């Protein structure tokens, strides 16, 4: 049976999430800011049309913001995570196999579907049902390989006439689109590689597809060779049938005596987060999702009971303790309620991946060499902790203020907090 992949990708995901419960912003340009409200990590269609660039520091565009009435949002990962889960659950009901690729995109296995319904029609069904159920618009790209499905999705987003669905199973169509697509739009071709390729005259996806794989493997890597074969319709990245590496790392503990104050709970959770991240680095893995939970002693029925948990999906999977500690604290704080004795807490890291399959995030804050420095810092920290009794740890002692993220434009947790539900009149 012919393998067929579909890539379903949400349109302007974060901005669409923010607009879902804000009909007043329906046609307003909206941007979402990175942690600490530093720079732009997502733009609505209208903001893109105004020429607001991805990754630009927000203080560089103050005048545009004022001039065009652009609406700012802090990153609300609680909201995006919940809506992402809804999109993925919806997709799982539609296709026999779903590979969640990132917070806003998933590969579906559509092999055999065309015997029942034309692929393009099926793509439209998927698109319509996702928007009906979740309110989030998506585009669908269909092709015999993942790399081509990505390219089909790019076309579905770029060309309005496609109405958001492109079936690229036909070889002729593949070549027509590849001739139009710049080489840096090809999945797996980063900025560095695309600059080199362009210098060699390989400017379009088609030129890359027609290049000699052996020559390019020598000059670049086996990964690029695989990309070339995928562009030619040979699926090289199959559904993962190999045994998966460890899927999650959990660190939790029951407390000797009930923990009451927030700073104490924070300290415990930070410790769990650090330990879990240490294990993560030991396994050479990166976490894509993290979860925090805590609860009172449910056996002590005479005491007031409270438990809660929250999780967040990271844009870029990480093994940096600082990032994880910061995220864990920002999840914990809004859930904490005074007046309870907490008996247990924990941190779980999941969606673990190896570096090799991490999607490069071109608007990530740290540049690749900063990332390298972070990795070195972490390995020095691990080394010291292995050798000596003196533990080097996150500067939790610096007090909560040091970790408190700036979130001046945070929208409500519309879908995950009873007190923050959207209001209807």
């Amino acid at each position, binding site marked *: 049976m012919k393998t067929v992949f579909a890539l379903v990708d949400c349109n302007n995901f974060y901005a669409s999430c923010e607009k879902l419960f804000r009909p007043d912003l*329906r046609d307003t340009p909206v941007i979402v800011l990175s942690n600490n409200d530093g720079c732009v990590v997502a733009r609505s269609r209208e903001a893109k049309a105004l020429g607001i660039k991805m990754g630009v520091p927000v203080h560089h565009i103050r005048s545009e913001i004022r001039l065009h009435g652009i609406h700012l949002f802090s990153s609300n990962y609680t909201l995006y995570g919940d809506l992402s889960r809804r999109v993925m659950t919806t997709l799982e009901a539609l296709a026999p196999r779903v590979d969640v690729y990132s917070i806003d995109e998933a590969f579906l296995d559509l092999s055999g579907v065309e015997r029942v319904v034309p692929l393009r029609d099926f793509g439209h069904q998927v698109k319509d049902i996702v928007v009906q159920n979740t309110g989030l618009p998506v585009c669908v790209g269909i092709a015999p390989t993942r790399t081509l499905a990505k390219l089909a999705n790019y076309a579905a987003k770029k060309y309005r006439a496609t109405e958001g669905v492109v079936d690229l199973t036909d070889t002729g169509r593949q070549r027509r689109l590849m001739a139009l697509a710049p080489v840096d739009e090809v999945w797996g071709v980063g900025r560095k590689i695309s600059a080199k390729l362009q210098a060699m005259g390989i400017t379009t996806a088609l030129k890359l597809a027609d290049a000699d794989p052996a020559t390019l493997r020598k000059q670049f890597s086996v990964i690029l060779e695989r990309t070339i074969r995928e562009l030619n319709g040979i699926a090289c990245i199959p559904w993962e049938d190999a045994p998966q590496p460890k899927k999650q790392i959990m660190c939790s503990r029951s407390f000797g005596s009930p923990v009451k104050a927030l700073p104490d709970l924070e300290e415990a959770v930070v410790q769990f987060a650090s330990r879990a991240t240490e294990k993560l680095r030991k396994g050479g893995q990166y976490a894509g999702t993290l979860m925090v939970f805590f609860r009172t002693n449910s056996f002590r029925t005479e005491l007031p009971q409270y438990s809660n948990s929250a999780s967040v999906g990271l844009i870029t999977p990480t093994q940096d303790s600082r990032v994880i500690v910061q995220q864990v604290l920002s999840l914990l704080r809004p859930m904490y309620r005074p007046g309870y004795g907490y008996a247990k807490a924990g941190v779980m890291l999941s969606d673990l991946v190896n570096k090799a399959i991490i999607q490069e995030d071109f608007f990530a804050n740290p540049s690749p060499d900063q990332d390298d420095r972070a990795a070195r810092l972490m390995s020095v920290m691990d080394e010291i902790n292995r050798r000596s009794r003196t533990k080097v740890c996150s500067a939790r002692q610096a007090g909560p203020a040091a970790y408190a993220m700036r979130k001046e434009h945070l929208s409500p947790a519309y879908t995950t907090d009873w007190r923050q539900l959207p209001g209807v009149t």
Partner: protein
Amino acid sequence: MSCILLGDAQTFLRLRIPLFLERVSAGFPSPAEDYIEKTLDLNELCIQHPAATFFVRVQGESMIGVGIFPDDVLVVDRSLRAQHGDIIIASLESEMTVKELHLTPPPVCLLPRNPAYQPIFIEDGMVLEVFGVVTNVVRSLKRGRKS
């Protein structure tokens, strides 16, 4: 009589017997135990499509005629296609509103269920988007409140 040395007393492991804090019934096991298949879950009653279900909170009194009061939580199912007579959440002129949907006779109308409120007729040029269909109302009864 012979003796066998079992081991040095000090090296014996201490067995940790878990202490069950739940009440354990002594004597006969409960005859009902085998018949408990599952418990009732309110979600099951109120939610058919979890991924498409959202909650909203009511402000205002435009729907008190159908038993929707201020502060009530409404269960909204987006996967349902709104039909004539459904209670829907709609975004109209930049606001989320809960009303009864009337499709006939034209024009489309959002009907409040409180005589103090006016029906909203959707005229040309007005933007109406259906957010979802209200399937249930959750109301907590405040105790000890004297009206």
